């Protein structure tokens, strides 16, 4: 019996070491031809790929062709104007380039002092947001080093002050909604509302006009208040559930203890 067992084990081990290792078939999204080529290039031709990786565009499935055009599946037509390829935009072409998607921001930017100064070399999207390594807009993009490249910090500082409070409130609500969604509560609608309010708020900044920003902040704050109320209602619901759940748990524990005590009464009778 033992010898048979050892023989089988030996045979099995030999066979399994000789046989090939099958690959676990993992389904992954295919890379565009843009990335396949440019990832291996040097200098300014390859750097954008690394910069784009991990960016907010990358995380949301926005790739090279979404902005630059061209065919992402065909090497031959990847950079063909026939397939919409527009190449690298010039300084003054950048707002309309980004504005293909960011329609609202473009509108506000074009009306602003920055927009008016565009042809003269004024600030455009990439000036503050970078190209490729783009991140979700945050308040600290407005800072002394960045803004004083062209003018003094006075108005920018004031604007930042006005934005700070609302920005903090938006962040706190984002955190609360994130926490709720991790618990499994469906807050998709509320997260959508908050996103809409945040975008309205961010877009207004691009006018760089204090009165205009204040004008837009009002409705945003109202929306935030309404959201806060809705979140409070959800949390109150969850609190109620927890309360009644605790009651049920307590009842079960009491029942268990009572049953144990009843058992004890039987045990006493069982003893000879």
């Amino acid at each position, binding site marked *: 019996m033992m010898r048979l067992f050892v023989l089988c084990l030996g045979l*099995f*081990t030999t066979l*399994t*070491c000789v*046989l090939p*290792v*099958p690959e*676990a*078939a*993992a*389904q*992954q*999204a295919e890379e565009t031809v843009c990335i396949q080529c440019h990832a291996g290039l040097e200098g300014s031709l390859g750097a954008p790929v690394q910069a784009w990786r991990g960016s907010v565009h990358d995380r949301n499935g926005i790739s090279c062709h979404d902005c630059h055009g061209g065919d992402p599946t065909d090497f031959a037509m990847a950079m063909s104007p026939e397939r919409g390829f527009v190449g690298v935009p010039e300084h003054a072409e950048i707002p309309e380039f980004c504005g293909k998607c960011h329609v609202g921001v473009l509108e506000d930017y074009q009306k602003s002092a920055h927009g008016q100064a565009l042809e003269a070399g004024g600030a455009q999207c990439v000036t503050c947001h970078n190209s490729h390594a783009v991140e979700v807009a945050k308040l600290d993009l407005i800072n002394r080093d960045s803004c004083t490249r062209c003018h003094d910090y006075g108005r920018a500082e004031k604007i930042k002050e006005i934005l700070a409070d609302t920005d903090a409130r938006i962040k706190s609500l984002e955190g609360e909604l994130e926490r709720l*969604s*991790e*618990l*499994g509560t*469906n807050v998709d609608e509320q997260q959508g509302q908050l996103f809409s309010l945040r975008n309205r708020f961010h877009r207004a900044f691009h006018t760089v006009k204090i009165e205009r920003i204040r004008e837009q902040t009002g409705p945003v704050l109202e929306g935030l208040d309404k959201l806060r109320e809705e979140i409070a209602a959800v949390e109150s619901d969850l609190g109620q*559930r*927890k309360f009644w*759940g*605790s009651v*049920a*748990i307590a009842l*079960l*524990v009491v*029942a*268990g*203890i009572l*049953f*144990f005590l*009843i*058992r004890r009464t*039987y045990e006493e009778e*069982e003893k000879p």
Partner: protein
Amino acid sequence: MSPLKALIDFFDVRLGVREIYQRELAGYLLPRRVNIWYTLGSVVLTLFIVQILTGILLLIYYVPDAEKAFQSVQYITDDVAFGWLFRMLHAVGANVIIIALLLHMLSVLFMAAYKGRRELTWLSGFILFNLALILCLTGYLLPWSQLSFWATTVATDVPGAIPVVGDLLVEFLRGGETVNNLTLGRFFALHVVGLPLVLLALIGFHLFCVKRRGISTPPFGEEYQQEELLPFFEHEEHPGGTPFFPNYVVKDAAVICFFLAFMLAIVFYAPGLFFPPSAFEPADPFVTPPGIKPEWYFLWAYQTLKIFPSEIIGLGVQIIFMTFLALLPFIDRGAERRPAKRPIFLTCFVLGILLFVGISIWGHYS
């Protein structure tokens, strides 16, 4: 005559219910020193009933189609009154039942209750444990979330390591080359009807074996005497023992209450315990979320596959281990049941638990 007595008389005259009561409940005598671990059987049975009941309730609103499944589960959780409660009870219950099954199995191993001509009870119990695991696996896919889809992809990849028939097996399991709507269809049929029918039949057989052979005596204490096995069938009697009803039924009831309280505690105080973020995103066959892992009760298998250089060795090791456990009563033929007098067994037992826990933790962090 009281109405209750009249009612009982009605059934007694037709079916002899008093005699059944006397034989199966009040007169069914168990050993006097049965310990708390003996209650786990009824705990597991109760938890299965909870799963079946909550499962039927979920069936009312669930739609087994890849386009609609996720949304139907969302409807249950967000819109149906108390839908969240029954969904959580079912999901958390699945995990608690595995805990209870493991404890039940461990106590049977420790007290060598598989000895003394109880091989069939052990075998049916072991198969039941595996069935429970497959029920968990098939159920996992049904919400059609990112977690469901990708955990099932990883799990159904495993048979692919088997030479020659591996790929065919995987396609058979999935109803295609990749996890798709056909996979959902067969997993749904298995989870809702196929496996529960087999499960119920086996539970019936398991309980029949337990009753027929008789409850084993706990192998502890000075009064313990090894049972003498004669060459014919014998039901292990416990004369002067303790009646099952009501004496041990209340003990079962107590432990069941505590297990249910434990389950509710998870539902209300740690609802995210078995729900990583990918459980709330609809399945996307083109995007694999990072760090997809099987549930905690499969981590040992997952990590074992990763340890060995070849998948077929990893799979083989697991099959050998499971076969060994299944056939344990045929391998451990000694009559000794007291743990203190079984040093080899005890060593393997402790090592086994440590290995299981260790490899599972490793699997969680790897």
